[in-house]
């Protein structure tokens, strides 16, 4: 250790020690001068002595580095392009890593995230994610060693005096904010005392809502805030940085015990059959999950004794860790796909870099030859090149980091994540950036040059072809995948969904939320007849499933069950193909869709057959109002019964822009029961929201595709330019001898044919594989889409041709005499 310090001391005082050594040796020479043989070159001897300090490698490295800096500085076009290409490849990957890191690797920023769990109701046949509130409360009181039981209910409410502003709200247990380690921006947050039955209704609001609705004024908090028209005392403001148990950003939190205050008549707290709350808790670190699950089985069995009808056969509670925003298992396929796509961009960048460096060897070949000739060793040249690419890689890593952070932030913003989710630059990011950039730079920038150091020209040619083929592969693959996504999204919009969604609205008064049950039928009769009297209303119907909604009842054959009034089919313009439509409330009959008839009774007449105990009286055209992306889904309609009325929604078809009718319909529905705060929306708006996810995915992947296209096109252009300059003399002579320009060009460009073809095929195959995964994850995407494949090829071919034009023109304009003289 001391040795190292002395070495460093020598290094730091290097010039003084060198001077002293020289002085000392000169003295030695003077004293010896008369007697012995000559001393030899004092400088060389001194350098040899200095070697003993052990810093020679550093000196060489610094020398190489200085030289590399000078070289890169002198070739600014090459340096800028290479760094841009590298940082693009690295930056895209870093951005993806940031997103992955924040979502799946980092723990939630809450106290003891590793003990946080979520509970699920499991039975041998099913998994249910939510609990009824009474069931949650039962488990909370009989929780054994499970601690900090938390309930979270997601819903939306109307806020403000006009009740026209709907916001995302959460009904939570009083311990929620304390468990999340949150601190208020203003006032206080909810605590367990707020959950008591006799406590006044209170709420806390998000910083965003506070600023937008109340102007960020602290005094405004003293006035009550109307939630669904009912006054709530706002006790505090939650800062933007708050991270709760879901990744979206709600605007309002209310103690779950005050559900009835926002939804008068609510049966949430007494209804065992509803499934409304997410159940989170903590498992102490010293208890294994399996042991905890075993303990809870006993609790479930105890509940079964008390309430046999409220526990599934063979039910148990499954515990899954909730310390991360996204569990790694659930998100693995999506992340793997994203990783593959961004990886392709990096590959494209590496290939491009390889081609760039290769093209540059045209200039450097001579330099290498001269340096070898004046006595440089090959290993010294290799070291020099390594240093150069190390420098390039470091530059690429630095710029890549600069690019990646805003890119990741933009992804979070674009996908509407909670504002607390921001990319964080950490050492892991820096390490990954450096590794990726330096490895890419050295492997792909250095390998081609390595070939030039051994003068076998065919090798270089093969290398060139491999780089080109790989470049084409990545570009085609990314372009096809983005094509698949873009076309998937547009197909949903263009292809008729089988029902009228441009002119229809959905109105949901939320009767069930307010505990309306027997009165629901009467309510609907009155409300619907009043709405039908209004001008511009063409037809209306009741349905148990809201079109484009999230609620759905499906059996194992993927048949979707609808309970509707007879006017449903006319309202949504679903054609009756055979038979008739049932009458209102007609028992024991059903109408099915064409798709279900064909699957269940292929080649037979479905009329008169029975299904699920009902006689089929009619067949209608396919109308996928839920499960848009699922090809196998089919529809089954039964007359709506009084028991379905509380959960029903009203569908209204209108003339003209549907948005104009929302306020009128809401007012009518509320006039019938002033406690309600109905939600009314146009189907076309809901469709746009539903497509936002796939659309964003398509945009992001298109961006990746554009990057790959740019890289491939510039790479190809550079390659052609390189080839043309390499063979300029030959082209000139051929042209002078009277060869047809087309033939000459053909001969020059022929070498690109095989790599481009191979790359295209490989890219298409890769894209098809990715498409198979995508088709399962996203609406309307199909893996085999000839237009996407052909489109990608045409795009690439056009780009590549444009990039090659300048070089080709240069080749054709070449003057043979001048070329020869130039040599």
């Amino acid at each position, binding site marked *: 250790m*001391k*040795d190292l310090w*002395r*070495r460093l001391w*020598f290094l730091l005082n290097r010039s003084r020690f060198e001077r*002293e*050594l020289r*002085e*000392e*040796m000169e*003295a*030695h*020479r*003077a*004293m*010896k001068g008369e007697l012995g043989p000559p*001393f*030899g070159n004092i400088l060389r*001897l*001194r350098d*040899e*002595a*200095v*070697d*003993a*300090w*052990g810093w020679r490698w550093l000196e060489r490295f610094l020398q190489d580095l200085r030289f590399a800096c000078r070289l890169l500085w002198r070739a600014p076009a090459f340096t800028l392009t290479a760094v841009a290409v590298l940082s693009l490849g690295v930056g895209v990957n870093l951005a993806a890593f940031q997103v992955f890191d924040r979502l799946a690797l980092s723990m939630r920023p809450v106290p003891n995230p590793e003990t946080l769990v979520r509970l699920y109701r499991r039975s041998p046949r099913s998994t249910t994610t939510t609990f009824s509130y009474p069931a949650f409360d039962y488990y909370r009181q009989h929780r054994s060693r499970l601690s900090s039981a938390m309930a979270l209910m997601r819903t939306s409410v109307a806020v403000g005096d006009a009740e026209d502003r709907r916001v995302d709200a959460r009904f939570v247990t009083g311990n929620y904010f304390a468990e999340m380690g949150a601190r208020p921006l203003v006032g206080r947050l909810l605590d367990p005392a707020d959950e008591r039955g006799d406590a006044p209704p209170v709420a806390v609001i998000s910083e965003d809502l506070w600023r937008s609705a109340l102007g960020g004024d602290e005094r405004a908090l003293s006035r009550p805030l109307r939630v669904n028209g009912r006054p709530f005392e706002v006790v505090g403001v939650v800062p933007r940085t708050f991270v709760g148990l879901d990744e979206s950003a709600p605007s309002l939190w209310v103690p779950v015990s005050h559900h009835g205050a926002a939804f008068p008549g609510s049966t949430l707290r007494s209804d065992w059959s509803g499934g409304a709350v997410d159940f989170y808790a903590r498992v102490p670190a010293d208890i294994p999950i399996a042991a905890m699950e075993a303990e809870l089985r006993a609790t479930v069995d105890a509940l079964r004794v008390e309430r046999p009808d409220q526990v599934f056969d063979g039910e148990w509670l499954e515990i899954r860790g909730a310390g991360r925003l996204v569990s790694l298992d659930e998100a693995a396929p999506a992340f793997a796909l994203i990783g593959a796509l961004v990886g392709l961009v990096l590959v494209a960048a590496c290939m491009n870099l390889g081609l760039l460096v290769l093209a540059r060897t045209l200039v450097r070949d001579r330099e290498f030859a001269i340096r070898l000739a004046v006595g440089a060793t090959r290993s010294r040249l290799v070291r020099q090149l390594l240093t150069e690419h190390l420098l390039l890689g470091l530059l690429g890593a630095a710029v890549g980091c600069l690019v990646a952070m805003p890119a990741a932030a933009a992804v979070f913003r674009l996908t509407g994540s909670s504002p607390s989710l921001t990319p964080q630059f950490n050492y892991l990011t820096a390490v990954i950036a450096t590794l990726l950039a330096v490895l890419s730079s050295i492997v792909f920038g250095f390998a081609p040059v390595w070939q030039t150091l051994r003068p076998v020209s065919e090798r270089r040619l093969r290398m060139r072809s491999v780089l080109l083929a790989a470049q084409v592969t990545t570009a085609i693959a990314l372009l096809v995948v983005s094509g698949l996504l873009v076309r998937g999204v547009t197909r949903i919009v263009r292809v008729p969904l089988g029902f009228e969604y441009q002119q229809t609205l959905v109105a949901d008064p939320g009767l069930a939320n307010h505990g309306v049950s027997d009165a629901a039928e009467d309510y609907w009769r009155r409300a619907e007849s009043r709405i039908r009297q209004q001008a511009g209303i063409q037809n209306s119907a009741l349905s148990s499933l809201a079109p484009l909604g999230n609620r759905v009842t499906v059996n194992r054959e993927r048949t979707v069950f609808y309970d509707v009034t007879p006017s449903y089919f006319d309202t949504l313009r679903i054609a009756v193909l055979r038979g008739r439509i049932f009458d209102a409330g007609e028992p024991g009959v059903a109408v099915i869709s064409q798709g279900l008839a064909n699957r269940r009774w292929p080649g037979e007449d479905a009329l008169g057959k029975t299904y699920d105990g009902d006689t089929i009286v009619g067949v209608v055209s396919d109308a996928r109002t839920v499960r848009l992306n699922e090809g196998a889904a089919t529809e089954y309609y039964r007359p709506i019964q009084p028991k379905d009325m509380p959960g029903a929604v009203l569908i209204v078809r209108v003339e003209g822009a549907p948005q104009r009718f929302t306020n009128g319909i809401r007012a009518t529905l509320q006039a019938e029961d002033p406690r309600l705060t109905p939600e009314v929306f146009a189907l076309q708006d809901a469709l746009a929201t539903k497509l936002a996810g796939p659309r964003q995915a398509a945009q992001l992947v298109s961006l990746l595709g554009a990057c790959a296209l740019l890289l491939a096109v510039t790479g190809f252009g550079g390659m052609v330019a390189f080839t043309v300059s390499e063979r300029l003399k030959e082209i000139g002579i051929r042209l002078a001898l009277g060869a047809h320009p087309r033939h000459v060009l053909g001969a020059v460009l022929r070498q690109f044919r095989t790599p481009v073809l191979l790359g295209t095929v490989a890219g298409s195959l890769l894209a098809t594989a990715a498409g198979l995964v995508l088709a399962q994850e996203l609406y309307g995407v199909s893996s085999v889409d000839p237009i996407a494949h052909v489109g990608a090829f045409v795009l690439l071919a056009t780009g590549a041709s444009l990039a090659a034009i300048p070089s080709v023109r240069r080749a054709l304009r070449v003057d043979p005499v001048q070329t020869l003289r130039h040599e």
Partner: protein
Amino acid sequence: MPETGVPPGTLVMLVLRVLQGGPLHGYAMAQRIHTLSSDVLQIEEGSLYPALQRILIHGWAKAEWGISETNRRVRFYKLTPAGRSQLAAQIADYERTNAAIQTVLRTA
């Protein structure tokens, strides 16, 4: 007897040994070794100064500027305690190796 260089690996030991008698400068060391070996061992400057640098790096000796007997500014090297123990270790090593070699030479 012809003059020869020192056997490989022993130069540092010889330098440390002559320094045991007191601080010396480079030229004096070479002279001392040359004389003590009855003019057999000839120290090349090309190997003496790298060896001295190594000795300094390892902390076996300290260098100080002074005035030589011929009135020149020269650097005197002075043995440190670390250098003393290093010398003892090297001599022990050397003697063991030497004895072994001798045994082989006599009996083989």
